[in-house]
């Protein structure tokens, strides 16, 4: 059995790294001779940096569930936009780094300088190498990232808010998404085609208010197939993780709105998310 143990360790303050383990969850994957351990600790806190929450966990769960496919893809370059605490990019690197794929380059951006610094600490604490840049989406990188990104992940500011709250300084820019929560998401959708490689995969977190079905339609017109890989209801929101990939024939794809999580995987998601929910209430 291939065990992947995810531990979240809560640090007491930004300087204490050794701290209390509040969660240990064992996830079981398809049989494999090796045992792998991914430990992602939250090593830094900053009042203006988004702490990993249900949405972050849903995204990492989607990546974990796709581990085999991601390995098979043999990505050269993985990019996270809006890396916040660094929880997701660090997890992705650990998910991929434990296989033979040592050639992978990781890259992360965030519009918040504080977030980028927190990401650096999280990466360093887990001995993960990644390039990190303060950028608006991928500003300054677009020229050299032209159709070379193999895995792209984005947990955007998706909460519907008045438009003037979008992109302001401070923690609000971590969640404020403007009309239907789509302002930042839509800007991202418009550049996916210029970023993704021919085999590239894009993972996006969205909530019901963002109209995930319509997001999939928009992407279908741009030549991307889609699938909802995680769907999860919390007290506050209904989370979706959408997955997109290129298709030659825009019609040759599965229905975008059908959740296609296998029964085994979805029960796995449920157990994992329940434990994480407990973690969140613990805090």
């Amino acid at each position: 059995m291939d065990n992947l143990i995810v531990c979240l360790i809560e640090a007491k303050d930004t300087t204490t790294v050794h701290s209390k383990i509040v969660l240990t969850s064992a996830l079981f994957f398809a049989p494999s001779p090796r045992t792998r351990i991914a430990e992602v600790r939250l090593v830094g806190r900053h009042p203006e940096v988004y702490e990993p929450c249900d949405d972050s966990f849903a995204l990492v769960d989607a990546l974990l569930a796709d581990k085999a496919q991601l390995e098979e893809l043999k990505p050269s370059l993985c990019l996270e936009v809006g890396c916040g605490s660094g929880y997701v990019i660090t997890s992705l690197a650990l998910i991929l780094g434990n296989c033979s794929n040592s050639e992978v380059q990781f890259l992360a951006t965030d519009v918040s300088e504080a977030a980028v610094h927190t990401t650096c600490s999280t990466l360093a604490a887990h001995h993960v190498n990644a390039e990190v840049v303060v950028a608006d989406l991928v500003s300054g990188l677009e020229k050299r990232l032209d159709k070379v990104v193999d895995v792209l992940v984005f947990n955007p500011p998706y909460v519907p808010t008045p438009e003037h709250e979008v992109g302001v300084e401070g923690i609000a820019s971590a969640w404020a998404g403007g009309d239907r929560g789509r302002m930042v998401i839509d800007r991202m959708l418009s550049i996916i085609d210029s970023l993704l490689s021919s085999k590239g995969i894009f993972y996006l977190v969205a909530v019901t208010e963002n109209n995930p079905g319509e997001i999939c339609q928009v992407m279908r017109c741009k030549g991307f197939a889609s699938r909802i890989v995680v769907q999860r209801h919390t007290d506050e929101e209904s989370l979706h993780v959408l997955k997109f990939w290129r298709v030659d024939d825009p019609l040759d794809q599965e229905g975008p709105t059908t959740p296609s999580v296998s029964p085994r995987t979805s029960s796995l998601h449920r157990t994992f998310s329940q434990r994480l929910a407990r973690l969140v209430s613990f805090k």
Partner: protein
Amino acid sequence: MRLLTHNMLSCNIKGVTNGFPLAIEATTVETKEVDMNPDFLRHIFPKLEWKAFRDASHSLGVDDLPEQVDPDMLLDEEFLRRFHHALLEVHLEEGVLICPETGRRFPVSKGIPNMLLNEDEV
């Protein structure tokens, strides 16, 4: 910021056509040792803009990279070592990246480049 990052950045101000590579004005440069991973180096080599990388390494005080390169060099241990050092161990901690076309200055502070633009630049 490592030179691998520098190699990926360009100035994206509206209307700029020649925003690569950014010139470097270095204030603080640090060296942090990391294990060498020849597979990573071989993989990344064809994707690098070599001239930009070599010029950037000069700005950070590294002078031992050849001007002309070919993939055969990746079999040479000594070359790999230099390549590894310049690409992944030398960090620009404090300094400025400068657009070759407009002279726009992008700050690098605590090792992080800031590529945000003002509203009138997008």
